[in-house]
């Protein structure tokens, strides 16, 4: 382990004070369930789905048919399961992907 030299030792106090002050001014975005939106499967029209980021997943504008069960759209929280989806077994959008009914 290296010994911090004087300049770094001063910085530690400065940095901690700055970070502390910044934290008292702002709060970090709350984790997980707080977003104003939810991912809603089965409500997007053909080609109008939003992105599902990450390797090997489908992405924005790639859905092939209207109301595709494994394509999602970002919608205001709470509205998904109230949005009609003709392909959905429940008749409404779902928070998980589903297999469209025939």
């Amino acid at each position, binding site marked *: 382990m290296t010994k911090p030299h004087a300049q770094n030792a001063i910085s530690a106090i400065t940095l901690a004070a700055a970070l502390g002050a910044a*934290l008292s001014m702002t709060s970090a*975005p709350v984790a997980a369930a707080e977003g104003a939106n939810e991912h809603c499967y089965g409500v997007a029209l053909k080609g109008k789905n939003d992105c599902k980021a990450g390797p090997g997943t489908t992405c924005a*504008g790639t859905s092939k048919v209207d109301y595709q069960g494994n394509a999602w759209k970002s919608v205001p929280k709470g509205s998904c399961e109230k949005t009609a989806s003709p392909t959905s077994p429940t008749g409404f959008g779902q928070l998980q992907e589903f297999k469209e009914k025939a």
Partner: protein
Amino acid sequence: MTLQAEFSAALLDAERLVPSGLIAWNGSNPDKRFAVYRNNVVTSLIDALADTFPVTLELVGDEFFRAMARVFVAQTLPRSPILAEYGDALPVFVENFPPAASVPYLADVARLEMLYLTAYHAADARPLDNAAFQSALADSAALPNARMRLHPSVGLLKSPYAVFSLWAAHQGAFGIGTVDPYRAEDVLVVRPRSDVEVMPLRSGAFYFLEQLADGASFGDSVMAVGEVQPDFDLVATLSDLIGVGAVIAINF
């Protein structure tokens, strides 16, 4: 030239003859069928660019944008089947497109829009929460050597033009008439959750973020900025970054 090369060259250049030997399945005129296909290819790529660069389009108008896009398309075939990536070369093209020279900030607005799309498709990551910041603070002696990890969707743009204000005015934030396009602005683009955030950066913050992104320690980054930008406001910048969710880890 192989038939395939001839075919693709003729697709993008209406002056070229249709490759010889083509026949249509229903016996109709191959020249006409090929012209329809050529038009579909070019128009779909122009449409993709119009979707990716809506503010760039608004700044110069639909007619100009489409004419410019047509020239771009003719010299730039997609290198990947992912249309969202098509257009990453447009900003450089715009910069060197003489008819657009009277709108010098156009290329940087296009850069911002490309960063927006890139952030949108970037990997998900959870921004660091308050508790994690507080526990980092508890280990304050180690802070100078700690490394802040930025969100994988973070994109940075430094511009001699008011690129953020121009973009924001087109989102309806304020009237375009109030924007002085020749004021320099730096911008941060990040997608902490489902939506992309675009944020103007304070003096020195761009350089600070560049240092962090390069893997420099917290202490070294602050010192480096202080040398080039004495008016750098560390507290306000940290507050901005924490609030927008641009930091995902502090590694000791």
